[in-house]
Every structure is written in structure tokens, then in C-alpha cells.
């Protein structure tokens, strides 16, 4: 099984002819992902190493049967690209682009309601189901197939924790980076719900960070809706209030959004929290052994 991306994924890359889009699109194909199309307005009819390029996402859906898109266009055009993909009937939209204005995301989030479309990102590393498909920029070689679902607001921190888990001889069903912006398409709760329903996933690691209240909402959801064990890690225990720590969403405002508050909310519901990536991986290994 796995979630979001798998052997049934038929990927279109919006921005395939750009240098980044090309590099990662081809890298995803090398991993085994079925990359069926690219979209660049004005470059329809061309191809990128055999991948046909279309002017519009609608054509990529109609002619190449794309069901998932990876958005790799500059921030100024990313909202337009996401709307186009949603309208074209692509079921899963994964937006890697960093720097999408927050007000755009408010509107897109409202537009998505009831559409049935899943949006991951923006400002995220994508999704990887080891052994099946990789959509995004996650280095596939450091992960192997297994039963751990991994969901994170951060990119490289996900690699760090995934790596520590792999070193312990364990593997992943799917790794999902939901993105570090204040408003993203899918929340922790959205992804946890999918992991709970996924037969390959045995337990879940959730990697959060300071800012917002998504970890607190996840804690409530885990307590009331999940049977699978969840282990959490939160970055930013020692971050000072009022300073944005790299991610637009990672800021402690007033007394809200601290790592300590998130840890307490999770632990109050019986969810174990590692204070370092290593500690989180060790808790996972302990659960795996029992």
C-alpha cells in the first residue's frame, strides 16, 4: 500500500523544462516513478529525455493520463500552477516551490475544500514511498521499505531522522514532508488519517517544529482516532520567541507555539516525544522491538 504516491502514480511535472524541475523530475524517474508528462506553457510538443511536454495540465491529464502533479515553478507563478492542476482534475498536487505568499495559500486552501484534491506543500520536499515512487526532492537512497510512516514539516530534518531509523535496521511505508509555511495544503492530521488507514504502515513518526498549533491538533486526533503508535519529535526547544527560524511558519508568537507546549500536549495524550532526533529514533526502535 503506502500513501499518496505508489506504483499507480502517473506524474506530471509542472516546470519540467526548468533546470530544477528537469533535474528532480529525471531523478524521480530514475527512482522508478512513472513520470508521464511535463507542462511548460509555450513548450508543448517538446520532450525532456523522452518525457512529453504539454502547454497545459489539462492536456497532460487528457493525453498522458497524469493523476499526480509536482509543481516546480517559481513562487510568483506557483499559485496559478496549483489552481490549474486542481481544475484539471489531478488528484494529488505536490508543490515544492518555496516562498509562495501566505494570502495566496489562504485562498487556495479555501478553494480546495470539497474538491477532493489533496495538496501537499508548498515549501516541502515532497513524498516518497520507498521501492515504489518518489515525487519531490527527498534523497531516495537513504530510505528503505518498511512499516514506519514518517510525516514532517521540515526537509533535511526528515532525512536526519529517516537516516537514524534506517541505521537501526527499520524502514518506511511513506515519507511525507508537509512543508514549513504558515498555511499548507495538508496538515499533520490529514496525513495521520491516511497512515491510520494504510495497511503497510504499522506505526508513525511525526516531526514537528515550533509555531502554529498543528502538533496540538494532531495530539487530539491521535488520542481519539488512532490505533497505531505515534512517536513525535519537535525541533526548536531552545528557539527564542519572536524570531523566525528559517521557515516562515517557525516562529514563537507570545506564549503560543513553543516546543515545550507541544511536547506537553502530546505527552498528556500518551504520545512519546524525543528531545533530539537520535532520541526519537531510539523510541521508535524500542517500539519496533516490543
Amino acid at each position, binding site marked *: 500500500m503506502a500513501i499518496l504516491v505508489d506504483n499507480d502514480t502517473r506524474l506530471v511535472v509542472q516546470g519540467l523544462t526548468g533546470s530544477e524541475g528537469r533535474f528532480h523530475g529525471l531523478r524521480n524517474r530514475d527512482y522508478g516513478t512513472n513520470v508521464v508528462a511535463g507542462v511548460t506553457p509555450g513548450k508543448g510538443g517538446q520532450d525532456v529525455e523522452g518525457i512529453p511536454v504539454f502547454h497545459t495540465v489539462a492536456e497532460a491529464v487528457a493525453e498522458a493520463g497524469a493523476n499526480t502533479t509536482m509543481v516546480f515553478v517559481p*513562487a*510568483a507563478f506557483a499559485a496559478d500552477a496549483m489552481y490549474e492542476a486542481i481544475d484539471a482534475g489531478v488528484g494529488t498536487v505536490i508543490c515544492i516551490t*518555496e*516562498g*509562495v*505568499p*501566505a*494570502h495566496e495559500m*489562504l*485562498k487556495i*486552501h*479555501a*478553494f480546495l475544500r470539497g474538491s477532493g484534491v489533496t495538496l501537499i506543500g508548498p515549501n516541502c*520536499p515532497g513524498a516518497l514511498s520507498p521501492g515504489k515512487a518518489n515525487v519531490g*526532492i*527527498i*534523497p531516495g537512497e*537513504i530510505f528503505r521499505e518498511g512499516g514506519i510512516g514518517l510525516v*514532517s*514539516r*521540515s*526537509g*533535511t*530534518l*526528515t*532525512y*536526519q531522522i529517516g*537516516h537514524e531509523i534506517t541505521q537501526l535496521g527499520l524502514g518506511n511505508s511513506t515519507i511525507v514532508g508537509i512543508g*514549513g*509555511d*504558515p*498555511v499548507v495544503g495538508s496538515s499533520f492530521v490529514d496525513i495521520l488519517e491516511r497512515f491510520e488507514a494504510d495497511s503497510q504502515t504499522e506505526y508513525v513518526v511525526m*516531526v514537528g*517544529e*515550533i509555531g*502554529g*498549533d498543528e502538533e496540538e*491538533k494532531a495530539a487530539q486526533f491521535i488520542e481519539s482516532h488512532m490505533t497505531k503508535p505515534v512517536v513525535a519529535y519537535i*525541533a*526548536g*526547544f*531552545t*528557539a*527564542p520567541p519572536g*524570531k*523566525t*527560524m*528559517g*521557515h*516562515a*511558519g*517557525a516562529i514563537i508568537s*507570545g506564549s503560543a507555539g513553543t516546543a515545550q507546549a507541544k511536547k506537553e500536549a502530546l505527552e498528556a495524550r500518551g504520545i512519546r516525544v524525543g*528531545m*533530539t*532526533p*537520535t532520541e526519537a529514533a531510539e523510541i521508535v526502535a524500542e517500539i519496533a522491538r516490543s
Partner: protein
Amino acid sequence: MDLYEYQGKELFARFGIPVSEGRLATTPEQARDAAAELGGTVVVKAQVLTGGRGKAGGIQLAQTPEEAEARASEILGMDIRGHAVRKVWVEGASDIAREYYLSIAFDRSAKKPLFMFTTQGGVDIEEVAESNPDALVRLHVDPLEGYHPWHGRRLVYGAGVADPSEQKQIAAIVEKLYAAFTASEAMLAEINPLIVTTDGEVRALDSKFTVDDNALFRHPDLAELHDVDAADPLEALAREKGVTYVKLDGEVGVLGNGAGLTMATVDVVTFAGGRPADFCDLGGGGDAQGVVDALEVITRDPQVRSIFFNIFGGITRCDEVARGILQALDRMGIEQPIVVRLDGTNAEEGRALLRDADASNVHTEATMLEGARRAVELAMAG
């Protein structure tokens, strides 16, 4: 990006929100001239990007131009919560009958803009929310629906504003504030206090306005308002070089790739008994030049006694990072010990480059935890 009070008020005025007439001054003489032009009693207000100005003595009344000059010379150069005052705003004093509070903020939890309004203004709004939650009217706006007059009515009637003229004026300000908020792509637009004068006129007496950094590219007029001198000098240098850098207060320079991993590194250094000097994120595609730039910023901080590179290569290639470190050593002659932990894309190649260069102050460690411990040890020894 935060706007100064005077910038926020100028923005309010552009959108038709009533504010008092005022002038900006950077010298006591300018403050005197401003007071003379405005006539009557004026208020001299420190312009800093932090709260607590009033308590710190940064807001003073002046009856005459001479007094305005004297007050300005006291306020200019003042340090308010670590912010040096370099500008004052001089405006006509208001006869205040009542103080209200109005704001619209980006509510990331609900994923909608959120209005907050109360007739108990002029104080800390979090206090009102806690002590008298019923007095604070909260109302979300659906971003697709946008503003409609009923939003204004709900706020005004909900908070119990009884006077018809006030109701009308406030509802109009609510609409204009929403327009300023969306047109400027703000994260926060706050008026505290929103005053009613003894003549019954409603005006914004203060402004707190934060714009989304990610949207600045399409608001050049707002981007221009950014005050380079207000930032920490190291943060300003970093911004110039395109390095994501936040100054902290310790001795271990922290450098990672990706915000989450760098945040985790700051934590781990602290847990290992050290104090991080900074949060420095090389970002996604960090190349050798990016590493050199980052090291230039970090080593400019005289408190730094050791540097910890914690890199997990994805898009970032570890050999590029290693090359950057070696180039920086060549060009800048860095004296502090550098602890390097490389994993992920091209980690082997990166480690080999460092090994071959055999620089006396470069130490490689296998894991994040070991690297942090070593960097802390070296900072303490140095």
C-alpha cells in the same frame, strides 16, 4: 517585515483610515520645526519595532516647539528593549474620550483572517482575552467571500458600541482595514488604541503592521520601507549576502542545511551544555560560495569560539560544502575550530576532501550528537 508606527499610519491614511497629522524627525531640531508647523500640543513618539515604548519613556507630550525639541533629544538615542531610537514621530495631541481596540490578523490555525474588536482598548489585548473574553469580539472572514458590510456590523454591535455616529465610523474603518490588510498581504494590522475624541471622531492613534516577507516581491513600495539599519548588523550583513541567519547569544556558531535540521542542531548544542551563537541555514542548494558567505557572517561575531557544521545532503552536496569550508579557510584565515558532520549526498567525497586538506582546526565527527559535543568542548577550551 514589521512597519514602524509612522509607516503603518501613512498606509492607513492611504486607505482612508483617519489618523492624526504628524511629521517624522531624526533630530531634535526637526522635531521642533514639526511641532511649530503642527501647532498646539504635540506628542513625540519613539519609532522602534518593539512594544513597551510608553513604559520606557519613549512617548512624551510637548506644549511648545522648544519642549518638543527637548523631549526629542531625550528620546532619540534611547535604548528600548535593545532597539536604539533613531527616529521620532511628532503628531498633534488628541483629546481622548474612549479607547478601543481593532485588529485583523492571519489566523493560521483556522486558515482565515481574524478580526478582533473590543471597546476595552489601550491595554494589552491578551489581558482582555483572558480576563474578559466576552468583551472581545472575534470574527473570521472567509478569504473567498472577502469583506462584506455585515462583518463590520457584527463587530460594532457585538462589542456594544451604542452611539450611531461611532458605529458608522468604526464600520467604515473595519472595511478599510480589511482592504489595507489584503492589498498589502499583511500578517497583522492592529490599531491599539482606536480612539474616540471628545468631539466624537474615531481615529487610529497607533499602528502595528506586519507584511508577509514572501509577498514583498510584488509590493515594491512596501519592500522599500525595510529599514536596514534597524536589524542587528550581522543579520543585515547576512541579508545582503543572501544567508538565512538569526543572531543568538552564545559561543558555538551553528550552521546547518534546512530550517528544521538547523533548529534541531541549535537544540542539540544547547542540550550538550553549549550556547549557540546563531541559527544559520545554508538552505536547499548550498554551494561552496554560500558556505564561504555564511562563514564570513558567523566569524564576524566576536563571541564565536567554535563552529559546528551539521549537514545532511539532499539537494545540497557534501563535497560542495567541504570545498566551501576549505575556500573560506584559505581566504579568511579562520582561527576558531570547525567541527564538521557530513551525511547524505556525496558525504564520502566531502569527508575525503577535508581529510586530504588536513587543516589543523577542522575536526570531523560521524554523528550530529558527537559533533555537537565536540563543538561545545572546543568552545569551552577556547
